[in-house]
């Protein structure tokens, strides 16, 4: 199995980059955004015993990081299949 043609190959790479960019935007927003740049603003919001900004900086962003990698893995496996470049 391989790419059917040059177009497919380019499209695969484009989709890969688009997915990566989207996930990296989320990565940036939860850590550098919510946890650092906007921390004072979000700290006005209290969720249980946490100030929200503090929670993102010391807990929340880490959970999102884990989720992002698994989403990437799942989506990329689908993409590989769709273009017939999955291994096996």
């Amino acid at each position: 199995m391989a790419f059917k043609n040059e177009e497919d190959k380019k499209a695969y790479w484009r989709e890969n980059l688009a997915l990566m960019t989207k996930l990296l935007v989320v990565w940036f927003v939860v850590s550098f955004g919510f946890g650092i740049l906007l921390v004072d603003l979000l700290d006005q919001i209290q969720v249980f015993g946490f100030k929200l900004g503090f929670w993102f900086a010391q807990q929340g962003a880490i959970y999102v990081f884990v989720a992002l990698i698994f989403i990437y893995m799942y989506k990329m496996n689908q993409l590989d299949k769709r273009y017939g470049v999955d291994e096996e």
Partner: protein
Amino acid sequence: MDVQVLTFLIVGASFALYIAIAIWARAGSTQEFYVAGGGVHPIANGMATAADWMSAASFISMAGLISFMGYDGAVYLLGWTGGYVLLALCLAPYLRKFGKFTVPDFIGDRYYSQTARTVAVICAIFVCFTYVAGQMRGVGVVFSRFLEVDIVTGVVIGMAIVFFYTVLGGMKGITYTQVAQYCVLIFAYLVPAVFISIMVTGHVLPQTGFGASLADGSGVYLLEKLDGLSTQLGFNEYTSGTKGTFDVFCITAALMVGTAGLPHVIVRFFTVPKVRDARKSAGWALLFIAILYTTAPSIAAFARVNMIETINGPTVSEQAPTGTPYSEAPSWITNWEKTGLISWDDKNQDGKMFYSGDERNEMQVDRDIMVMANPEIANLPAWVIALVAAGGIAAALSTSAGLLLVISTSVSHDLLKRNLMPNITDKKELFYARLAAGVAIVIAGYFGVNPPGFVAQVVAFAFGLAASSFFPAIIMGIFMKRMNDKGAVSGMLAGIGFTAAYIIYFKFVNPAANVSENWWFGVSPEGIGAIGMLVNFAVALLVFKMTKEAPQEIQQLVEDIRYPKGAGDATAH
């Protein structure tokens, strides 16, 4: 049974396990020695990566560090986990597809340049030695505190164990011992954390206990209480920081990018069979790491409240407590006083201990106590104390082994095979790899016994260098297929030069000037790697614009690593 005997038993049992695994997983070829034959299951590799990554510092020091830094501790929490997202999305799958043994392999082949390879080898060796010296020291410290043997004996025992399974098993031996070490260290970290969370907040999960109200029936949230205590005692409010926002931003970025560029972490992704396994394995690795990294800030907060209340006395009424009489101090304070981790100086001669952030303070508390004394603070049984000792040693050993392997591979493969003696046989190369590993262990052990005063200073260096050298070179190598050798080499040199100059100036040449007023844009030496990375990118692009793009066959190679399989066929159409 007393703590001492239990500790010997538990630590001894864990050593026996590591040695048994090493004998079972001997390496027969360089492929097994360098990348465990490329056949490691992605979940096992995830565990091994987590153990590889979490060092003695993560296990012993991080929670305590956060405990004293409050919000600012987020730079470590975010920096040392966020890098894995970059690794998983931008590096690991492509480097796996490239399918060689080391990071300098990639840099050298992709940029068709021995200079690039040599720069990469030097960076890799430097970064690894910086790190490994600290690990050996960690082994020695744990041994001396829990087993009361002296540091030299502790380091020698640690060296012997690592020597045994690294030299014998190479990457294969290391991988499977790291899986075992992860299990030991995470269990040892969680048990006291869960107990202490139940004690302080009634929550089983430290992660939710962190945001819960106290179990004393006051209905006050843990963090609210901590903020109150902190301001009352003249500290900064726990949930807000003291560092400048831009500095926090840069330190976090430097640690993240540095993490993604550390050779001993990257090389773990060469050990799985397929590209999809590399993606999967990165996800599992971060999950396993996140278990410890989300527990650490919770421990930090619990331990701080506990410590303040034990020393100053509980807050019962509106009136601020004035201290606990030393004669009534719990046994852990007197136990740990012997190790010098905590000390009391009765300045006002009232016979009471008092801890604060102003002139009333009478206590010196070392950050390492937050994890190491936790089981005693929470009155946990002796076997938990023994477990923490085994966990600390597991964390230090697993990281040292990973680093030593990179050093040995850099010497035998990148330096000898690919550079000086291209004609040596696989057997000969394997022999040199083992020899290099052995020599590296002895050097690391020497630094463990005689720690150079600069170890703490150079950690920033290790991350800064990885961030300003490897990361941009690899990223451009994958995502810009026309990037050429001259651009990459000048980018790396500019990035390293800039970062090294800044750190050396503030840490060594003129340490007195190392205050935020003198820093460029308020960026501390810890965060300068982020700027160094930008310098690298900028210089590389500039030089690239003025020189010839990469030759066609290199562009073809880059094309090829972008697709899990079948790329070669497609271009033939």
